[in-house]
């Protein structure tokens, strides 16, 4: 499969501290690629940097999308190239209805399915939700589903999904994963950010992010095993050595 996304030596600093410390990653077109890592390892920072959000401009490194260097491109430019992001904690909007939000997404992307269908796919009955506003009265889980519906409506080339499983009840996780598989079958490459092993296992390939670096990329089961074993090892080590372990593992 052709390469859709390539990240080379990406360094992102926040408040004078390096969060991503040289991320290298390649994602093939058409795959679901899981980024697995514990809390605080830089997963969301990676997602934000890929989308080009303010405050996440790389200090070093570059991002290539379909062979084009997009490191300096704005959020809008990236979206119009076919990249979008579903936030881990989506924004709320006063006065903006679910229908309007999904229509915006649909027009801004490659015209995915009708907004009613997008909502139905994420398990929200359209007649109950299209007229509601994206304010705090939607529960966290409902808002996350609307976020996923917006990605479906965009029908992007690359969807960056930042922990789509968080805030979703355990019984619905399989449904959410099926939505992700469905969007992938329709031609969207997915970068699936998660710390849940069972979610990562559903991807085609996975990478383990730790300490701001990708330590391992490969078959999902193998990476999950590495994540479990390595993280247990990490947890028992004092902080300075943790960094050393990360570097050693990264060189393997």
């Amino acid at each position: 499969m052709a390469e859709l996304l390539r990240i080379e030596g990406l360094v992102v600093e926040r408040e004078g501290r390096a969060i991503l410390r040289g991320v290298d990653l390649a994602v093939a077109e058409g795959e679901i690629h899981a980024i697995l890592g514990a809390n605080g390892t830089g997963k969301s920072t990676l997602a934000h940097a890929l989308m080009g959000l303010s405050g996440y401009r790389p200090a070093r490194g570059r991002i290539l999308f379909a062979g084009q260097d997009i490191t300096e491109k704005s959020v809008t430019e990236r979206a119009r190239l076919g990249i979008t992001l579903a936030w881990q904690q989506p924004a709320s909007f006063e006065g903006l209805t679910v229908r309007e939000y999904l229509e915006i997404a649909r027009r801004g992307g490659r015209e995915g399915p009708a907004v009613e269908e997008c909502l139905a796919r994420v398990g929200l009955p359209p007649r109950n939700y299209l007229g509601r506003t994206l304010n705090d009265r939607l529960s966290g889980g409902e808002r996350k589903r609307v976020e996923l519906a917006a990605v479906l409506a965009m029908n992007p080339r690359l969807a960056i999904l930042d922990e789509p499983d968080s805030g979703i009840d355990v019984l619905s996780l399989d449904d959410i994963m099926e939505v992700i598989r469905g969007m992938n079958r329709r031609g969207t490459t997915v970068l699936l950010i998660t710390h849940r092993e069972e979610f990562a296992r559903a991807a085609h390939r996975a990478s383990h992010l730790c300490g701001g670096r990708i330590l391992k990329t490969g078959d999902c089961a193998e990476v999950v095993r590495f994540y479990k074993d390595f993280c247990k090892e990490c947890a028992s080590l004092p902080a300075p050595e943790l960094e050393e372990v990360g570097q050693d593992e990264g060189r393997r």
Partner: protein
Amino acid sequence: MRDGVERDPSREFAALAEAVERTGGSAAALRNPRIASLVVHQNRVLGLNALPGLTMDAEPLPDGIRAHVEVAPGTVLPDPVHLCFGVLPKEGVQRILATFRIGEGASAQFWAHCAFPNAERVQHLMEASIEVGGGARMAYTEVHYHGPYGGTEVLPKAVIRVHKGGQYVSEFKLVQGRVGLLSLDYVVHLGEGAVAELVAKVHGKGEDRIFLREALHLEGPYARGLVKSRIVLQDRAQAEFTGEAVGIGPYSRGHIDCTEILWGAEARASAVPKLLVVDERAKLTHEAAIGSIDRKELETLMARGLTEEEAVATVVRGLLR
């Protein structure tokens, strides 16, 4: 003039009706004999249509009108009552002295359309006294349509009394055209178990000056009130919001919620909450957010393909809707 239909087919009526359309209202409603309405241009009553259970009187004053609106106890008006106040010339004064009486157990909704489309030096003053009887409900929505010159002074004052178990809901909206000067002063006195919700949405541009004072006096036990303001300021516009709540009745609850968005480096905004708890069992809260539009909201919309300018316009439109 009393109950019954009186219509002035003048061009003023037609021009005001057109302005009503621009506030999102229905001009046809002003001509519909089955819908209650009052149309006033400066100090001339151009149309008045009351219905059974609803009394409306209007008499001219040298610089405006005196109006009395009364809904008989137990009457439930199925459709909104349309009120239209306007000044069409570039200059003029319109003073509205209004009393509203909503009888016990009655329910009525009012849509007020205020149109000053050509104003270069127009003053619109309103002094309203509103009484909502026990168990009654009144909803009052006032939407303004101003021209582009910023020459309007809007000075509405209202004292509202809501008796036991009554409800009063109001929305004031001035988002089309230039504000000019707005000085709004509403005070609501709430009896036992009474409920009030005051919402104001204003979009200031150019040199507009906006002063909003909305106060809840929670006098009866279990009275509840919400004051909510949404203000967007562009260019060099300035706004000062004062939200007051006084918790007198035991177990009364009041909340002040103010959001002011600065959309321009020279715009200025302030918010002053004033909370006074008289009975220790009362509870008052407030929240205020002043600043630029939340970056996350903008970038969420940009990640869906909008430009930054389109994203700002979308957020503002939602906030002021």
